[in-house]
C-alpha cells in the first residue's frame, strides 16, 4: 500500500484523446496504473489503448467504479473539469495544467475542501509511487531518478524534482510516494495536508520536501513538526536562498514580497522545528542518511524524541 495511489486505484482520464492525454495514458498503464475509463466530450464510443471514452464523467460513472481522476485539460477549462469530477464523487484528482487562473484555483481548492476531496496541482508533474502507479508524467524509466524505496517526497517544482530525487537515489535510497503539489500560488493540496498520510504509511521512513521562496507551505510543515503531529525524519531543500527580493524569480507562487515568504524565514522555521535543511541538492542524500541513522540510534537506546535527535 502506498499513499494516494497504488496498482488497485481505478483511474479516470479526463482529456484522454488529446495528444498529451493519449501519450501519458500509455505510460501510466505501462508503469502499472489501473486506468478504467476516459472522458472527452464528443468522443464517446472511441477507445484509447483499449480504454473506453465517454462524453462526460457522469456517463463514465454509470459503467465504472472510479477512485481517482487524472486531468489532461487546458488551464482555462480546468475548473470546469475539476467540478465535474467532484460531482461524479471522485475524491482524488490530479491536474497537471500549467496556467490555471488564480481565482479559478481558489474556487477549485474550496470545492475540494468542501467535498472532502484532494486535488493535487496544477502546475505539477503529478503523483508517482515508483514501480506501482503514476498519475501525471515522470521519466520513471530513468532508474537513477525513480527507483522504488522508502523515502516520501513532496515538491513545488517539476524540474527540481528530477534533480533532488536523483540525489536521493544516488545516496542509496528510493522513493515510496512522490507528490508534486505544484508551483502555483494557490495549489489544490498543501504540503502539510499530506503529512498525516506519510506519517501513517508503513512504507515511508522519512520525507523530503522540495520547497522554494514565497507562500507559507514550508512554515505549515514546520508547525506540524513542532506540534509532533509528524514525527518521522524530515529533510527540506529550498530553492531561491539568494534570490533578490521583489524579482519575479521562480514560479508565480514564489514571489518574495515585503519580507514574507523568504527562504531565510522558512529555513529558520524548519530548523527550529527539528527538520534538516539542505543548502544544495546533493546534501539531501547526506542529511537523509544522518537523520535515519540518528533515528535508529535513538530508537535503540529507547530515547524519546527521535526526530529532534535527528536534526542535530
Amino acid at each position, binding site marked *: 500500500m502506498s499513499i494516494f495511489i497504488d496498482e488497485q486505484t481505478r483511474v479516470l482520464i479526463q482529456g484522454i484523446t488529446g495528444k*498529451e492525454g493519449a501519450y501519458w495514458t500509455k505510460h501510466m498503464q505501462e508503469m502499472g496504473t489501473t486506468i478504467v475509463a476516459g472522458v472527452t466530450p464528443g468522443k464517446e464510443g472511441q477507445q484509447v489503448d483499449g480504454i473506453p471514452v465517454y462524453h462526460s464523467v457522469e456517463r463514465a460513472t454509470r459503467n465504472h467504479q472510479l477512485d481517482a481522476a487524472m486531468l489532461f485539460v487546458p*488551464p*482555462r477549462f480546468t475548473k470546469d473539469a475539476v467540478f465535474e469530477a467532484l460531482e461524479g464523487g471522485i475524491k482524488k484528482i490530479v491536474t497537471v495544467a*500549467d*496556467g*490555471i*487562473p*488564480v*481565482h479559478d484555483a*481558489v*474556487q*477549485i*481548492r*474550496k*470545492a475540494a*475542501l468542501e467535498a472532502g476531496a484532494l486535488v493535487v496541482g496544477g502546475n505539477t*508533474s503529478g503523483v508517482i509511487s515508483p514501480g506501482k502507479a503514476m498519475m501525471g*508524467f*515522470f*521519466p520513471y524509466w*530513468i532508474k537513477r531518478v525513480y527507483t522504488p524505496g522508502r523515502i516520501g517526497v513532496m*515538491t*513545488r*517544482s*517539476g*524540474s*527540481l*524534482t*528530477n*534533480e533532488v530525487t*536523483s540525489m536521493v537515489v544516488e545516496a542509496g535510497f528510493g522513493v515510496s510516494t512522490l507528490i508534486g503539489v505544484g*508551483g502555483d*500560488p*494557490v*495549489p489544490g493540496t*498543501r504540503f502539510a495536508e499530506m503529512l498525516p498520510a506519510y506519517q501513517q504509511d508503513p512504507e515511508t521512513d522519512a520525507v523530503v520536501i*522540495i520547497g*522554494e*521562496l514565497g*507562500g*507559507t507551505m514550508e512554515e*505549515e510543515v514546520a508547525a506540524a513538526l513542532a506540534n509532533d503531529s509528524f514525527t518521522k525524519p524530515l529533510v527540506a531543500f529550498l*530553492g*531561491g536562498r*539568494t*534570490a533578490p527580493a521583489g*524579482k*519575479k*524569480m*521562480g*514560479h*508565480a507562487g514564489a514571489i518574495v*514580497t*515585503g*519580507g*514574507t515568504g523568504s527562504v531565510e524565514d522558512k529555513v529558520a522555521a524548519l530548523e527550529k522545528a527539528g527538520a534538516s535543511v539542505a*543548502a*544544495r*541538492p*546533493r546534501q539531501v542524500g547526506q542529511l537523509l542518511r544522518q537523520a535515519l541513522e540518528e533515528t535508529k540510534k535513538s530508537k535503540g537506546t529507547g530515547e524519546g524524541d527521535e526526530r529532534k535527535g535527528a536534526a542535530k
Partner: protein
Amino acid sequence: MKLFEYQAKEVFKNSGIPVPDSRLVHNRSEAAAAVDAVGTPCAVKSQLLMGGRGKAGLIKLAKNKDQALQIAEELFSRPEGVQKLLIEEAVDIEKELYLSITLDPVKAEGLVIACAEGGVEIETLAKERPEAIVRKNFDLTRGLQAYQARAAVYDMGLSGDAAKQAVKILMGLYKAFTTYDAELIEINPLFLTKSGIIKDGPNKEGQLIAGDGKLSIDDNAAHRQQEYSITREHFSSDMEYEAAMDGIPYLQFDGDISLMCAGAGLTTTVYDLINYEGGSVANYLEFGGPNYRRAMRAMELCLQNPSKVILIVTFGTIARADVMAEGVVEAIKKLNPNRPIVTCIRGTNEEDAVKILEGAGLTPIFDTEEAVRTAVKIAKGGAA
C-alpha cells in the same frame, strides 16, 4: 501584471470609488494644461511601479502652477526614466486609512484587509501593529456580501457617514477584484478628507477618497483580461521586455554567467549555486516547458549580454534532453557564440543528448554542481 496608479484609478472610478480629479501627462506642455484643469495646490506623481515613490521624491506637492511645472520638469529628467506624470488635485487630509482585497491560499477564499492606519506599507504595519489590522474572509463563489463589508468597516472603527462610504468603496473594490482577476487590489492611503474640501462632494462630513491605487492582474487570466497589456514601462531593461514579448522568463543582472536553464525551480537553484561558488549571474533565463524547442532564441538573448560564459542546465521529462541538445548544437552552429558554453542536459533520452553534444565537440557534464563550478571557473578566467 501590475497596473500603474493612473490605470488603477481608472478602474476605481468605473467601480464607483471616489478618486481625486487628475490628468495624465507625457510632457511639460501637457502639464500646464493639466494644472489649469485640476487647479492648485496639486500633487505631481511619477507613474512608476516601484513602491515608496513618496520617500524617493517621485511624488511632490506643488503650491502653484509655476512650482508644479518646475516639479514636472524635474521628475521627467529623473534617472528612473519617468514617462508619465499624474497631476492630481490636492486633498485636505484628516486621516489616512487602508483597504484591500486579496486571496487566502490556505482557506481558499477572498480576503478583505482593512485598517484605520493607512499610508504605510501593510507588511510593515502587520509586523508592528498586527492588532490594528482587520481581516475578513469571504467565499469567492458566493462573492463578498454587504454584511461582510459592513463587518470589516465597523471593525476598523469607522462610524456614521464615513462607514457608509467605506462599505460602498469596499463593494466597488470587490467588483473590480473579480472583474479584473486581481491577485491584489489596494487603496493605500484611503483619505478621509476634512469637511468641504472636495469639489462637488458632500461638504458636511469628511469624504473618503482613494489617495493611491494598486491593482495586480493574474497573468494566467490574460485570455479573459484584455483591457490592459504589458508595456516596456513594466520592465527595468529592454532585454527583459524583449524576452517577455517572446514568452521567455528572463531577468537581467550584471554578473558573468548567462543562465539558460529549464524549469523555474531548477533555474533558481542554479542561481543559488553560482552565488555559493562565488560566481555572479548575468541573466536568468528559462527555456524549459513550452520553450524547450527554442534554444536558438534563448541563446540569442544570452549573447546580447556581455557575459563570459553560458551555462545550460536541464532535467526534463516532456522537455526531452535529446531535443534540447539538438537545439543547443544548432544554435551554436548558427550563432557562433564568442564565449564558452557549459552543458548539463539530462532527463528523457539523456543518452542521446550526450552523443549529440559530444558529436558537436562539447563536453557534456552530468552533475549540476560540477557544471556550476566549471562555469564559475571559466568566468574567473580559468580554463574549462
